């Protein structure tokens, strides 16, 4: 049968989500997850549950090969069991590795029912739990994509340079496991993915293509996890930055927590190593996730959503948008007390 990846339209549930968090996003950009829940509940009026009992899916362990597939399947089955117990059939997934992983497991089960039976047995023996197959697995970027026009209607800001009146030039990076493993599970497929560019355009920005758009950020699982191997990771990110540079992007938008972190941190590391940035200034190119970008156009306080946790400073971007914010509150704690500040922000002194 014809398996064309053109005009892939995937199904995205429109309400009643069970939220499955991301290890990396919670660790580095916890504010992005919180504001995603807040947007869904309080701006879009959706039902989404944040359950305390779910754990890591162990996907990073799986792709760095210390967790066998059978265990991974059982861990995924456990997440599904929690959904089932709470009466939810739609998963909203924060992590791209998990997102790819849940689909990988479901596809295996479709093709090889004996694997599903094994996972059910393992889960039952280990935890006494049972599960139903979810009806819909969507990534948080899918949900933002689905409601991009609603968000645009509620938006306080547009992705427009306030001074020039021109749309911000935005490059995107799609996490590899979002659509490369199963092209029909990603909006627009694997090759010309539109899940982020459509969002950017709906909010007034200009989506800019660049040659290495589809190249991996370089996480490489074991390559980043082992210190001696990290040059693999940084050299792949560098390849992307070099490819973006001529297009002078105002920012990078990502859908993957890991990519978000690497593209932020490797700009800093490359500046330290090479004395060079790819942004035309010393700060670097700000990197935001789709959650953070949605929060910005909706006018959330940038410090409530954790943008002070980025190494590349987001303030120049806020200035471009004409965002009304208070720079003095950037390093205040929950009670308004100064909590100290990083020795250095951005990429180059």
């Amino acid at each position, binding site marked *: *049968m*014809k*398996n*064309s*990846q*053109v005009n892939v339209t995937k199904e995205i549930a429109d309400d009643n989500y069970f939220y499955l968090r991301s290890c990396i996003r919670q660790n580095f950009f916890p504010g992005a997850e919180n504001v995603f829940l807040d947007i869904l509940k309080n701006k879009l009026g959706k039902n989404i549950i944040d359950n305390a009992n779910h754990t890591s899916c162990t996907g990073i362990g799986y792709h760095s090969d210390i967790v066998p597939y059978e265990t991974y399947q059982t861990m995924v089955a456990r997440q599904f069991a929690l959904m089932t117990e709470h009466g939810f059939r739609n998963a909203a997934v924060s992590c791209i590795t998990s997102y790819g992983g849940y689909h990988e497991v479901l596809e295996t089960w479709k093709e090889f029912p004996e694997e599903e039976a094994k996972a059910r047995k393992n889960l039952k023996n280990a935890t006494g739990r049972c599960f139903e197959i979810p009806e819909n697995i969507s990534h948080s970027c899918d949900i933002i994509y689905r409601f991009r026009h609603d968000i645009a209607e509620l938006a306080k800001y547009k992705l427009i340079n306030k001074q020039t009146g021109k749309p911000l030039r935005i490059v995107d990076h799609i996490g590899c496991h979002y659509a490369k493993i199963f092209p029909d599970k990603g909006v627009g*497929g694997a*090759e*010309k993915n539109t899940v982020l560019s459509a969002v950017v355009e709906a909010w007034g920005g200009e989506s800019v*293509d*660049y*040659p*290495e*758009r*589809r190249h991996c950020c370089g996480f490489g699982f074991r390559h980043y996890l082992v210190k001696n191997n990290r040059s693999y990771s940084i050299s792949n990110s560098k390849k992307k930055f070099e490819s973006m540079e*001529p*297009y002078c992007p105002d920012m990078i938008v990502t859908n993957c927590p890991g990519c978000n972190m690497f593209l932020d941190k490797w700009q800093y590391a490359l500046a330290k190593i090479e004395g060079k940035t790819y942004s035309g200034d010393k700060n670097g190119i700000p990197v935001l996730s789709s959650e953070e970008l949605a929060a910005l156009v909706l006018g959330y306080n940038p410090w409530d959503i954790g943008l002070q946790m980025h190494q590349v400073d987001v303030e120049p971007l806020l200035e471009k948008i004409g965002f009304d914010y208070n720079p003095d509150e950037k390093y205040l704690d929950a009670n308004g007390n100064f909590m100290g500040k990083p020795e250095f922000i951005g990429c180059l002194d």
Partner: protein
Amino acid sequence: MIDKKHIAIIGGGIAGQEAASVLTGLGYKVTILEKNERMGGMLNKWSKLFPDFSSSQLVLDAVKVATDKNLNVICNADIFSVQKENGRFKLSDNSSLDVYADAVIMSTGYNLFDATLKEEYGYGVFENVITSADFEKVHKSGEKLTTADGKAPRRVAFIHCVGSRDAKTGNTYCSKVCCITGVKQAIEVTQMWPECEVFNFYMDLRLYGSKYDALYLEAQKHHKIQFIRGRLSEVSERQGKELQLKAEDTLQGRPLRMKTDIVVLLIGMEACKQNEDLCRDNALELDENRFFKSKNIYNHRNSSTQSGVFLAGSCICPMSVNESLESARSAAMLVDKSLKVQER
């Protein structure tokens, strides 16, 4: 009684016309039903033919059936139904046209693969990515191939197997003629631009025709065309609309990156979509590649699974001009044989 027998031919390309001229020559009444305004089919789009660079017009002129009292040509006839009624066939199009015949030849030809489906190659998105059919159009116009902004290309890359031997596009078969087309067109580029570097990215060079290998030799020896064994993985556009290719040079075992001004996609042949309609009201069947299924691919290549309906040319499988013409002649002979058997 031959002159009382009527044969309908669906498709007025070179195969349909060749079959018609054999049959009228034998004294049969023949009607060609062509869905387009003009006869000639896909060959109208081609400029020069492999392996000897003859003009396609030469073939088109040669197959043109001499005006004959026994020949009836109906253009703009998009036949969608073939039904057997009282031992004869009734062919209908979307208007009120009904044609009755004692035998039918299918010569519906082929479609070109829609290269936009191979998204990673950027056809329809990047202006400097064109197809082999686009190249023929340029060649036929007498113009030279240039980049989208009118410049002489410094480097051109031909990409083999686009929409062929590819489970991703649903076409797992080999289109057979693209390899030699790539060699031919590569030479034509160097004839237009002697300074231009030309590369062919191939997986297997399937140069099956008797004179095709000589053309390959000529391409390498006299035109310095380079052949790289590796299937193209992706095309992206750089600033200035220059293209960036990613492939593996599999003979070196290393990834290969190349910047090029123009990419030409050698698109494969697909069965006509309309074939499905034509099978609906009879015993015709399609094969796994959606071409018409032969009764048996060895002895009965030109017989369909419906008795009285015969197959000619590239509606059976991808074929070169030569093969199409041969196939048409053998289909015509088979029609003659079968009607004579009926007669007895």
